[in-house]
């Protein structure tokens, strides 16, 4: 299997990658040897982007302790560009983002407006109002793709882009995530694609990239923004901008192997923030479905995607979900449930046991065998795992369930036996059935310990948790509603 270079443009790109990371943490099947996420956002302080970058770093730390495996939580490698390309010059940033703008740079400075000829200045004044020209780019393009389409050209001059070209091998794939109704994503996606498919490019790796299989996800409007006099972004223009961009795509988007569209009825308006730390939109089911498009893209064989045409995809919930404000497992197609149902349920069970019970399980043989009494508070791996659950996974599930439309796969605050939202209570026993609780799960872990625990490492711990929760799923939970 080869690498997937995953470009996430703007806030939506970051949030889709966050959902993908959650799925990968759950151990969902990813048909790539490693994922290389590259977040492109001029707004380096964007709350959504920062949260995703922190999550990616955490995932990477946890995965490094475990290594790549056939199956299991955190099984697939997530790497930075620095990891896949030996950066001898030390010019690459060590994170997952693509820094390409100087701090506080205005659009005027960026295009060197005052040194242009008078005629050029007049032309640019026609295209960009004074307010747009003088705005700083540090919070992005504030919903203006016309600015983005100029500024993002600078991307390709960065050392990160050069390294990407050098690290790209024949057989690797590219996937671009963007929204069509904002500024950064709407402008960045066509520009990136054009650069990748240009036969005139001379950067290292241009040949391989030119022939690469490229997929993309275009997220159409799925949320609104409150009207605000202090923000240049007006969500009333989202639909108009989408139509204009779609029209542009129809005639100018060439060379894509697969294009995924996803959207939802606009049910909720977020706080209107132009960018920066304040832009922390709640996770939404559309972003999770967007993440599924990446998995779907990887499921296709090269021959299926190389037929000289673009494969277009859309996603639909079951018909009875059309007016449902709360989506549960029962509203998802069998294909989706097969792909994410078991892994996400296992991760949720693991998270619940880890955060609510593990510290009290001191008398259980598996706890003693893994020497958790000593390691839980001292080893960075277990601290990282706790941070992942408390600061990322739980808030993500909570946001998904509180958003509109809500995705509520699990009952978040109930006892273990009532975990599945809209599902039957989880019970055990052949004749006299009783509700499953942590003691039952502890028993499963103990039963499995002798066949799994070898060197008491985090790898043993995670394998035990994966197999134990898998056994619970197989014997007591499935089928999902």
């Amino acid at each position, binding site marked *: 299997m080869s690498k997937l270079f995953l470009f996430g443009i703007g806030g939506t790109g970051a949030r889709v990658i966050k959902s993908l990371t959650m799925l990968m943490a759950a151990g969902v099947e990813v048909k790539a040897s490693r994922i290389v996420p590259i977040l492109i956002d001029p707004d380096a302080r964007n709350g959504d982007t920062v949260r995703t970058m922190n999550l990616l770093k955490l995932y990477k730390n946890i995965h490094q302790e475990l290594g790549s495996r056939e199956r299991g939580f955190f099984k697939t490698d997530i790497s930075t560009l620095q990891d896949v390309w030996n950066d001898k010059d030390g010019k690459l940033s060590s994170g997952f983002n693509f820094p390409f703008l100087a701090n506080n740079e205005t659009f005027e400075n960026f295009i060197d407006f005052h040194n242009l000829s008078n005629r050029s200045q007049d032309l640019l004044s026609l295209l960009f109002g004074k307010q747009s020209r003088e705005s700083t780019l540090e919070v992005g393009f504030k919903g203006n793709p016309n600015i983005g389409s100029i500024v993002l050209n600078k991307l390709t001059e960065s050392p990160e882009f050069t390294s990407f070209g050098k690290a790209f091998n024949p057989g690797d794939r590219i996937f671009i995530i963007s929204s069509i109704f904002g500024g950064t994503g709407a402008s960045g996606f066509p520009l990136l694609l054009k650069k990748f498919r240009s036969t005139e490019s001379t950067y290292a790796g241009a040949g391989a990239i030119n022939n690469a299989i490229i997929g993309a996800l275009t997220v159409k409007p799925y949320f609104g923004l409150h009207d605000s006099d202090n923000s240049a972004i007006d969500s009333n223009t989202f639909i108009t901008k989408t139509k204009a961009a779609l029209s542009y795509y129809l005639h100018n988007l060439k060379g894509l192997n697969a294009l995924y569209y996803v959207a939802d009825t606009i049910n909720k308006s977020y706080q209107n923030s132009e960018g920066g730390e304040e832009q922390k939109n709640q996770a939404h089911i559309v972003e999770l479905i967007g993440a599924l498009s990446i998995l779907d893209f990887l499921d296709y064989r090269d021959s299926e995607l190389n037929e000289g045409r673009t494969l277009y995809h859309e996603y639909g919930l079951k018909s009875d979900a059309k007016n449902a404000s709360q989506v549960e497992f029962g509203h998802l197609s069998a294909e989706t449930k097969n792909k994410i149902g078991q892994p996400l349920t296992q991760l949720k069970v693991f998270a619940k046991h880890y955060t609510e019970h593990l510290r009290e399980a001191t*008398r*259980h*043989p598996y706890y003693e065998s893994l020497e958790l009494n000593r390691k839980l508070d001292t080893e960075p791996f277990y601290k990282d795992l706790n941070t992942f659950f408390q600061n990322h996974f739980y808030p993500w599930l909570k946001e998904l369930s509180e958003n509109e439309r809500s995705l509520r796969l699990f009952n978040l605050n109930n006892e273990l036996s009532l975990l599945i939202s809209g599902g039957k209570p989880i019970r055990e026993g052949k004749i006299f059935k009783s509700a499953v609780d942590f*003691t039952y799960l502890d028993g499963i872990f103990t*039963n499995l310990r002798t066949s799994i625990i070898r060197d008491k490492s985090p790898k043993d711990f995670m394998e035990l948790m994966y197999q134990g929760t898998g056994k619970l799923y197989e014997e007591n939970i499935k089928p999902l509603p």
Partner: protein
Amino acid sequence: MQEFFTFLYELFIGEHPNEAALIRNEVFPSVGLLTLFITLLMVLLYYYGMNSLSTRARFNYTGYWIGVMLVNAIICFVVALNKIANGLEVHFDDYEPYFYYFAVENAFYSIFFFLLFSLIFKTWSKHAPYVPFKFPMR
């Protein structure tokens, strides 16, 4: 056997003023063996019944272990009281303080035997090899 149990029981409460021979010959050995047998059964019940038969690991806490141990002590108390009274053919209304001392002593020995059997059998219990403590396991 008889000498062993006589030594054990008379260690703290001494000999019975009138019926020492009868008690030494008939009561001490039978109560001692019965106490050992009941305690063994209770230990096996705790480690291999409550803590091995089911997947559910609900009882592998020291609190439950102490609970079973106390139940065992009460049973052994009653057995000892009953056996000595029957052996000397004494009605409940005429029980002597010696009978109660003997029953209490037997209950204490049952606790000692319970601990001893636990140390021997806990190692192979599925859920409770570390109850009431880790020793002798690593």
